[in-house]
């Protein structure tokens, strides 16, 4: 129930940022629309820990700048590879261990891996992440370790331990 209200508030904020017209009529439509959407979302059973991840939002936004920096660095690396006339690639599929306990955390980690060019998540099963890497040498870096640690931190906060 609390999550449904949270989703409603977030959606209304989304409406306000999109709208730009603050007349009573349109605000009324906004409230009505939010209620309708929350009702449909509840029917679809998407209003839960994963669908409305309000508990990780704050931590996720503090993780985002680091991720963007990583994406930029990886982009430059891959750009160098592509523009190299010899095309120095050695693609292979490897399996990583991820320390996330919930599906939400796994999804964040898997998507972070995919977003940084050079690595793509091809499958997730429990703690195992199957990854296609453009260059095997890229995998043995601290960044990959750090990404795992940081995603787990997003999932459950710095001090909280998994129960």
């Amino acid at each position, binding site marked *: 129930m609390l999550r449904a209200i949270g989703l409603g508030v977030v959606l209304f904020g989304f409406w306000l940022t999109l*709208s*730009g017209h603050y007349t009573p009529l349109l605000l009324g*439509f906004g409230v009505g*629309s939010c209620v*309708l*959407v929350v009702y449909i979302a509840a029917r679809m059973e998407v209003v839960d820990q994963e*669908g*409305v991840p309000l508990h990780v939002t704050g931590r996720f936004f503090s993780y985002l700048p680091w991720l963007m920096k990583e994406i930029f660095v990886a982009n430059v690396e891959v750009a160098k590879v592509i523009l190299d006339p010899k095309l120095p690639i050695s693609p292979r599929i490897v399996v990583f261990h991820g320390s996330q306990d919930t599906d939400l955390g796994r*999804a964040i980690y898997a998507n972070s891996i995919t977003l940084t060019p050079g690595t793509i998540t091809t*499958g997730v099963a429990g703690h195992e992440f199957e990854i296609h890497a453009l260059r095997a040498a890229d995998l043995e870096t601290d960044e990959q370790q750090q990404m795992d640690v940081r995603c787990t931190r997003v999932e459950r906060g710095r001090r909280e331990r998994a129960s």
Partner: protein
Amino acid sequence: MDDRVILRVGAKILIPFILLYALYVQFHGDYGPGGGFQAGVIFAAAFVLYALVYGLGNALKVLPPRATYACGALGVALYLGVGFVTMAMGGNFLDYDVLAHDPTHGQHYGIIGVELGVLVTVFGVMVELFYAFAGRRRLDP
């Protein structure tokens, strides 16, 4: 083990925002590109995404085919209803000016009603079409 984690979580987060965006497009037709048809398509797209990720069975539970038929009819009824209300109030069919004391407001309310009808019909028919296609299997598996 369900290995569709990424799709499932992504769709879950995305669907409410797509639905709300559709309604935003619906009600801001006056101010930018948008209106009933586009909104209906986006609204239906959210259901299509849901059906693709969670399976047709779940989608049919959320929105049974009977409801989509009803949507298709209801929208047309709404459209016609606005027309008949204007006639009852002494104007021509879909002559919005008579809906309020001020013709401009009348136009406004009339168009909102008609666009809502378009949204409901387009949404119903789009989802109905998807259900019809999704029920078919490819012949060479």
